């Protein structure tokens, strides 16, 4: 995602209130904060404010050091499995000189203080958390260490220059005395934050934790059921709620035929009509769910002036794909180099092909929920899954008319996200939870059943791409043209921005490094009826499949091995040449096949590359056909993110991205018929089961180039590598996903 959320409003301007009370109010539900630190004397507030111009310097807003020396860090980023909380503890701990294992990391509340990314926004997405905040978060740790040293000098009555630290302690070597950080925190955090320019960061050669496979901080809690997600939370006097959504987005509630009977059902507190939904509030969620599903609603078609993207009654994904394929333009160029038309005209060989992909659901395991509570003073607290707390709070303020300062927003752990928890107008339960809490005067926890989630989840976009290419007399590509009929997720959410191309629509067709002198990448913008969103690796999740599979077609047509062709096209790019060779070497040397494996199966391999989110990846896939279905045996992936913080977490992210990549390649597809999703649960929307997983082998290359992302970059090259292997094995070209739509023998 190049420009992740270039939405019109980025409401980040609310000043953060750094009062101690405010900070404590931001702690987890019911947590009794007995720690010391972050008190908020006026000196501290002044110090923080004085440095407001410099990102990530308001030390007291981030850190609490408890009497036992444990460190509580409020992270600007949400933890949803990608390991960012552990990475933040490593980065801050390295400079603070505190073992990451002593950290407790939670998501920070909204507020300007936590906007630490170099692009000036705060989201958890676009694989940006570590790479965009790395120097700032290191400096934060170093500033805190400087404050502890200063406090140590005052407390011990010795010159600052005589003090050093060892993990968790300020040490005066001359006298053999030392003080734990926990003993100094009260004094230290009341000191003014030093001038950031006065700080020296640790030499990377001296790193103890950055770059090491530090254990995840959440591994134990997540293996014993102790980790709490929004769906698990409760507050005193809380009621539960469930909804039934309109079968098609935009429809509204006409009348309820059996309201009285439903109100009389066991456990039911009340029945409510909401925009595009009916709701039941009950003492137990099971009662609420059963009752709300029993409501017979007369739904009304969407009003002509509906602000939502109303889903037409005749919408079908297959028909929409045909519609996209029939579009002739106008197309807008995003990349255009050389003379594509001339090269095509004069080509020895021309190659043309049309590719398409499928809509996808996020299908994260935790169904969306939200907990809303109005406090006696009229202020509002909301616990909700989100990837952008400031945007969510601003939206809540807009909806409720409350001053943002009177809204406390909590961001619990995410039970998977993959792009699901951005601010999607019609796809979040919190507006309903807030409305119900207001209506009944008690806190409400609303859970969307899996079926209601599938009905409102936003979709990964669909595209039909027409390729044309020219080969010279040596069979080498000299021109490539890709025209994609599609709508990008950002322009679906924020509206088409004049003539501007949505970079998230074409990324992966654009940004390729192959030395093909004439190229044109263009979009035919086609606004569709389905509400779209970001899905792990966004535009790259589809576009690298198209491009890299078509590149294999060019290799075959030109009589070149696809691996050798890629090396040739990257001959002036040492970084990608090294990467591609590393993937081949990891797989035991490039070997396309088909060949017979030890178990007697016929197998072949495919190769593909992708350069998303500031990182680069190369994948080799090995496949066979088993009972007419593609079996992926191995994925060898080499990835170059420049430099990394935690190799173990990077490996896990690659394995996870491969799984999602295989899932979209082999079996996932969101199908709509008559304006309704065919699947409302995992029975008809299969996600990758363990039996379809490949053995993943990872090679991390730290080229030392600018740090790139990790959560998304390993995904996009998986689909084309598999498709290319299948084409080689079966002789059947793969120009669409998922492969479950093909028959193989």
């Amino acid at each position, binding site marked *: 995602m190049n420009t992740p959320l270039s939405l019109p409003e980025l409401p980040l301007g609310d000043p953060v209130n750094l009062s101690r009370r405010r900070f404590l109010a931001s702690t987890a539900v019911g947590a009794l904060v007995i720690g010391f630190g972050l008190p908020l004397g006026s000196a501290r507030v002044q110090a923080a404010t004085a440095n407001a111009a410099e990102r990530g310097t308001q030390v007291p807003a981030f850190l609490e050091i408890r009497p036992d020396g444990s460190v509580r860090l409020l992270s600007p980023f949400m933890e949803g*499995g*990608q*390991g960012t909380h552990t990475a933040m503890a490593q980065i801050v701990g390295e400079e603070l000189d505190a073992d990451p294992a002593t950290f407790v990391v939670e998501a920070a509340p909204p507020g300007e203080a936590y906007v630490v990314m170099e692009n000036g926004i705060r989201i958890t997405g676009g694989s940006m958390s570590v790479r965009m905040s790395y120097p700032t978060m290191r400096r934060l740790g170093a500033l805190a260490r400087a404050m502890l040293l200063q406090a140590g000098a005052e407390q011990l009555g010795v010159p600052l220059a005589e003090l050093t630290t060892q993990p968790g302690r300020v040490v005066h070597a001359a006298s053999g005395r030392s003080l734990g950080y926990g003993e100094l925190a009260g004094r230290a955090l009341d000191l003014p934050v030093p001038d950031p320019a006065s700080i020296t960061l640790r030499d990377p050669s001296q790193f103890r934790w950055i770059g090491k496979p530090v*254990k*995840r901080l*959440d*591994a*134990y*809690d*997540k*293996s*014993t*059921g*102790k*980790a*709490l*997600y929004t*769906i*698990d939370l*409760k507050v005193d006097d809380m009621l*539960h709620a469930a909804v039934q959504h309109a079968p098609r987005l935009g429809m509204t509630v006409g009348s309820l035929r059996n309201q009285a009977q439903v109100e009389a059902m*066991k456990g039911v507190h009340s029945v409510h009509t909401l925009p595009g939904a009916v709701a039941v509030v009950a003492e*137990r*969620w*099971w009662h609420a769910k059963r009752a709300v599903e029993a409501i017979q609603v007369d739904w009304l078609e969407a009003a002509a002036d509906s602000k939502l993207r109303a889903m037409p009654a005749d919408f079908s994904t297959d028909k929409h794909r045909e519609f996209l394929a029939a579009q002739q333009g106008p197309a807008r160029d995003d990349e255009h180099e050389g003379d594509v038309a001339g090269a095509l005209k004069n080509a020895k060989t021309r190659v043309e092909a049309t590719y398409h992909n499928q809509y996808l659901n996020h*299908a*994260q*395991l*935790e*169904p969306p929920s939200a907990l809303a509570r109005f406090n006696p003073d009229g202020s509002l607290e909301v616990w909700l899954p989100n990837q952008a707390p400031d945007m969510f709070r601003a939206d809540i303020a807009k909806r409720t008319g409350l001053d943002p300062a009177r809204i406390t927003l909590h961001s619990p*752990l*995410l*039970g*998977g*996200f*993959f792009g699901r928890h951005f601010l999607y107008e019609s796809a979040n339960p919190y507006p309903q939870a807030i409305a119900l809490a207001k209506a009944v005067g008690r806190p409400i926890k609303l*859970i969307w*059943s*899996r*079926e209601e989630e599938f009905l409102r989840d936003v979709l990964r976009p669909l595209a039909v791409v027409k390729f044309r290419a020219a080969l010279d007399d040596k069979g080498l590509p000299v021109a490539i043209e890709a025209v994609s009929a599609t709508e990008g997720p950002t322009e679906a959410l924020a509206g088409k921005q004049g003539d501007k191309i949505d970079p998230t629509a074409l990324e992966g067709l654009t940004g390729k490094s192959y030395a093909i002198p004439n190229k044109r990448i263009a979009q035919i913008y086609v606004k569709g009826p389905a509400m779209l969103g970001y899905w792990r690796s966004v535009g790259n999740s589809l576009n690298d499949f198209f491009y890299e599979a078509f590149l294999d077609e060019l290799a075959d047509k030109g009589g070149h091995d696809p691996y050798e062709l890629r090396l040739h096209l990257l001959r002036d790019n040492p970084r990608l040449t090294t990467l591609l060779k590393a993937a081949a070497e990891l797989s035991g040397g490039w070997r396309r096949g088909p060949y017979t494996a030890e178990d007697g199966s016929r197998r072949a391999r495919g190769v593909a590359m992708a350069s998303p989110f500031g990182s680069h990846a190369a994948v080799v896939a090995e496949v066979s056909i088993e009972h007419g279905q593609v079996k992926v045996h191995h994925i060898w992936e080499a990835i170059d993110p420049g430099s990394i913080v935690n190799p*173990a977490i990077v490996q*896990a992210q690659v*394995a*996870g*991205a*491969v*799984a*999602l990549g295989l*899932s979209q390649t082999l079996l996932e597809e969101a199908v709509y018929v008559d304006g309704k999703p065919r699947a409302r*649960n*995992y*029975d008809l929307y299969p*996600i*990758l*089961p*363990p*039996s379809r*997983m490949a*053995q*993943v082998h990872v090679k991390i290359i730290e080229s030392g180039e600018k740090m790139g992302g990790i959560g998304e970059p390993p995904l996009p090259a998986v689909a084309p590598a598999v498709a290319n292997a299948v084409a080689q094995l079966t002789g059947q070209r793969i120009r669409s996903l998922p492969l479950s739509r093909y028959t193989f023998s």
Partner: protein
Amino acid sequence: MELRINQKAYQVEVDADTPLLWVIRDDLGMTGTKYGCGLAQCGACSVLVDGNVVRACVTPVAAVAGREITTIEAIEADDVGKRVVAAWVEHQVAQCGYCQSGQVMAATALLKHTPAPTTAQIDAAMVNLCRCGTYNAIHTAMDDLAKQERA
């Protein structure tokens, strides 16, 4: 009706057909067992009933009254469960973690019946879904547990 969960007796006032999952989560406040699909598709709600793995989201509570139910909250009170948790931490299995309660319960059930499972037995038993794609790590942890038993 009386339920025996984690070696404790609980009196609950619920309809016989209420899924065990929601009794555990909402009536008894034990939230380690997760709701994922409600259709026995994903396995996030896996618990043990008399040592066998059961999907609580489709198990009517009346069907397990009087039987010994074990949830993730008591997993470390069980010797096998404790080893499973240790292996899950050692091999850093969890990512988002939402499915892992169920994975740990499924692993514990398998190892109680088959202390040193083969790869095929692991494949047959460990069928819960994980959207983060921790399947390789789960397999590594299971292989390690099986190896410990053989040694």
